[in-house]
């Protein structure tokens, strides 16, 4: 399969390269894979990209960490407390329906041009994904297993630790896959709209001088980072969900 996947990608790049070289695709708007690869290489060779990449990753990590922690916490509290869940329900819907991009200018005003305006934007995205999945995961715990644990003498805390968290983990993990990508997207959008560092800033700079190769180079670097981080989450998930039958595990997380 990996072979076929590689072939598809290679064919796509080849057509792109050929199209741009033969003049079917306008080089000015589409650039060429070869040029983009050369630019990526240049950026890394010159070392200028590292500080931008570091800033973007730091922002993404912070918004991911804060978003996941607050999402899981809020998901647990609301799933266990029907009154609070009903009370907050309409407000959570409204907040989630809001397009996050429109928050970016507000966050810029509140938190300035530094990393925190991007982290805030990332958190608003990650939080809701993790929150909804955790909420669902805790609500959908098999009642028989909960009753069994209670009959065996579990206190509320033991119930959370031994039953609710492990059971919600599959749901939480499927949300992590999505939210890690979204965290990176959100902070890059934030950088794009106003920053002095970061990959999004690089892309905005390149766009400002109609440098499509630079824009695509930034995108390529981001794509590679997202793939790498996703792979890491996969490994962690496999270790933590060892108890799942293989087929079922991949089906639920897919």
């Amino acid at each position, binding site marked *: 399969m990996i072979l076929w996947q590689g072939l598809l990608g290679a064919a796509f790049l080849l057509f792109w390269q050929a199209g741009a070289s033969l003049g079917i695709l306008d080089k000015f708007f589409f650039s060429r894979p070869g040029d983009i690869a050369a630019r990526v290489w240049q950026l890394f060779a010159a070392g200028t990209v590292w500080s931008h990449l570091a800033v973007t990753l730091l922002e993404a990590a912070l918004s991911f960490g804060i978003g996941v922690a607050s999402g899981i916490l809020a998901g647990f509290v609301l799933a266990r407390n029907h009154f609070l869940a009903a009370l907050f329900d309409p407000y959570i819907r409204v907040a989630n329906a809001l397009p996050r991009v429109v928050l970016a200018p507000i966050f810029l005003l509140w938190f300035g041009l530094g990393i925190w305006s991007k982290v805030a934007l990332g958190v608003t995205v990650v939080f809701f994904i993790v929150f909804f999945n955790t909420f669902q995961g805790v609500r959908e715990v098999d009642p028989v297993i909960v009753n069994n644990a209670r*009959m065996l*003498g579990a206190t509320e805390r033991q119930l959370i630790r031994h039953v609710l968290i492990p059971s919600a983990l599959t749901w939480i993990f499927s949300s992590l896959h999505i939210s890690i990508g979204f965290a990176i997207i959100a902070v890059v959008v934030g950088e794009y709209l106003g920053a002095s560092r970061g990959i999004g800033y690089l892309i905005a700079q390149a766009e400002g001088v109609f440098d499509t190769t630079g824009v695509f180079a930034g995108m390529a670097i981001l794509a590679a980072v997202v793939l790498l981080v996703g792979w890491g989450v996969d490994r962690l998930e496999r270790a933590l969900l060892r108890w799942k039958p293989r087929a079922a595990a991949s089906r639920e997380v897919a």
Partner: protein
Amino acid sequence: MSNVTHQFAGYTAVEDVSLSVSQGRFVSVVGPSGCGKSTVLSIAAGLLAPTSGSVDVLGNRLEGINRRAAYMFQQDALLPWKTVLANITLGLEFRGMAVEAARGPALEWVRRAGLEGFENHYPHQLSGGMRKRVAMAQTWIVDPDIVLMDEPFGALDVHTRLRMESEILGLWSGSGKTVLFVTHDLEEAVALSDEVVVLSAGPASRVVGSYAVDLPRPRNLIDIRTDPEFNRIYTAIWRHLRTEVLKSYAS
């Protein structure tokens, strides 16, 4: 132990059920499907609070979970994310025992349940019969005064079921524990019990009969079903149960 009395005057499931089980007895509850057998058991366990009426356990009014009781469920109730050993240890862990200290007794129960070599397997890697053995060890390890069983062997094939029934009887004999056993299978009920209680067809089912089963113990479950005395008792209860089953068909 004084008497356990369940009085439950509800609107649908069970109505005005009174039942008392003396300490150390093995009592079965039978009735047509959907007659609220499981409801009675859940109330005895404290998992359900009765709409009205009350439950007394060993002389104390039951509020919340019944701490003197263990419960074997009809469905798979093992924690799928814990190994066999961790599942069996759970009850002791919940009671505040350190995991290392609980390991000894847990391994002893692994042995008694015939699960050696499977300590580190996860439930989904076991057969239905083995999962029931784990569930059995999980419930009995906490040494409860009362064991509540809700059709625990319903999903097993006939032979595995017979073996599990024998093992439950073996565990119970001489233990002094009180067992309340719910089943739809009258043969199983007569073979295992000291007393069989018949519930009427639901909704709003009641206790409509109680039969003593004074077959000698220990019983050989393989041969008991051909015993004339067994058949006499079985037929007597079946005559009664039959009318309830027919009523449940009609509705």
